[in-house]
């Protein structure tokens, strides 16, 4: 699971990496909205092609996206089972005993799978190309106007970026504990239900203990360096929009408009 890639920053040198985090966040939101406009397979096809181009420009590999997608497969299988039991639209595909699988069930699952894939492609393009620190700055600036009505923009941004920052660490930690317990004969794959529950407990308890430990260490380290939430802070880096950022904004707006257009025309 050192291979677990969801939310992990990839230190590469690409035009996407250089873009302004604020604009990347806005673009991501626009793209996510585009997904939820019902533009059918043509719409998804367009978004897929565009995102593939972005991924290639960002020098990310498709294997990377696939690995991020993998943990979701289990969920999708589960969904397929539920859909198969519930959905009775479309043509019947085959019948076993009293159970009939309809094409609607498959289509609906496929629809969700495609949306999920696109969502992962889009969010990965943001998280893999934006340093956690830049992400904080970006979120904070975007929430800035809300400060006037009392929204703690800085704290929210810090919270989000710490959470993002810790995902890979927690995954590494899970893997380490898993290895340690496997050395003591825990079998994560085989075994009875009772053994499996034991296996999961042997993983979760140490994970929580170390997560709390980590949280405490981080809090102490931040306080030791004078961090106090709510206090005014100076910035080492200020964000500035460049031409490429406006291109990004224009591009994602185009996609959104196209999606709306396609959904109306079809």
């Amino acid at each position, binding site marked *: 699971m050192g291979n677990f890639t969801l939310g992990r920053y990839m230190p590469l040198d690409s035009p996407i990496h250089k873009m302004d985090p604020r604009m990347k966040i806005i673009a991501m939101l626009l793209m996510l909205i585009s997904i939820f406009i019902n533009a059918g397979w043509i719409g998804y096809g367009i978004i897929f092609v565009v995102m593939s181009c972005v991924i290639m420009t960002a020098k990310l590999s498709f294997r*990377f996206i696939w690995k991020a997608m993998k943990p979701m497969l289990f969920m999708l299988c589960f969904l397929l089972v539920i859909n198969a039991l519930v959905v009775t639209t479309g043509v019947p595909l085959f019948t076993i005993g009293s159970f009939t699988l309809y094409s609607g069930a498959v289509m609906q699952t496929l629809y969700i799978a495609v949306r999920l894939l696109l969502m992962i492609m889009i969010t990965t393009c943001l998280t893999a190309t934006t340093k956690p620190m830049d992400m904080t700055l970006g979120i904070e600036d975007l929430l800035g106007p809300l400060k006037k009505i009392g929204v703690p923009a800085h704290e929210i941004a810090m919270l989000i970026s710490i959470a993002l920052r810790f995902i890979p660490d927690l995954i590494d930690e899970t893997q*380490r*504990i898993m290895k340690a317990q496997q050395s003591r004969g*825990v079998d994560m794959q*085989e075994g009875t239900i009772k053994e499996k529950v034991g296996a999961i*407990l042997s993983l979760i*308890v*140490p994970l929580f203990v170390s997560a709390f430990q980590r949280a405490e260490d981080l809090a102490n380290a931040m306080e030791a360096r004078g961090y106090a939430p709510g206090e005014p802070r100076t910035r080492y880096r200020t964000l500035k929009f460049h031409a490429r950022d406006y291109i990004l904004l224009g591009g994602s707006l185009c996609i959104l408009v196209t999606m709306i257009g396609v959904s109306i025309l079809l």
Partner: protein
Amino acid sequence: MPIQFENVSHVYSAGTPYQYQALKGINLKIAEGKMTAVIGETGSGKSTLVQHLNALLLPDEGKIRILDRVIVAGEKPKKLKSLRGKVGLVFQFPEYQLFEETVIKDVAFGPKNFGVSEQEAVLKAKQALHLVGLGEEFFEKSPLELSGGQKRRVAIAGILAMDPKVLVLDEPTAGLDPAGTKMMMRLFERLNKEMHKTVLIVTHDMEQVFAYCDDVVIVADGKIRMHGPAKKFFEDSRLCKEMNILPPALIRTRDALNQNGFEIPSDIADIHALAKEIRKQVKRHG
């Protein structure tokens, strides 16, 4: 021949910018019944190497023979559990693996996983805790309320209770007090000499290597730099310098004495013998 590495390589996070080849064509044979030290700089690949011994990490290239198992790169091995019962691995910071409500339950967790009955597992746990120097008063405590060093001992006991044939320890004494360190090293020595277990120990402490280990393996940059008898290695001051390793204090003292006109033989094994020898030679010249 219980352990043999043939041209083993391991790559972390292959295909990402974090890709790192931690082992580069390792060839290594470790004889049965020996106590072997694995040394090398931080990040040289020691932990990666030892995690191959119970197939927690699988080779990306090459072949590993362990006891009666052969693990070949590219093949997915089955039934690894039985191997893990025979090769006990204590991790670098094993205190994080504790999770049961009581110390005794946690130590009994390993043997129970390998099909030992509840009663027998508890018995084995008690013996193992006794071996690592934790008395009755600790049995019913929560592992979370122990000190770091005590947790370490519980974790080591957790592996000992499985009674493995091969014992692999990744820096087991890091962070223990001197008395605890000595006690642990004596314990590992006893397991090796009296119970004939093959012991591999990753360490940064040359005094330990010199005092307790038969052989020494030096890992550098993911490769085996040297493998041979520990005593002979430390005798060879030029080789030590070449490997960038400071020999143990006894050897350094002896070399310094010899450079200043003494003639201390190389079979002097501890400071008492050295002191006696110095006295003898001083008297003779006196």
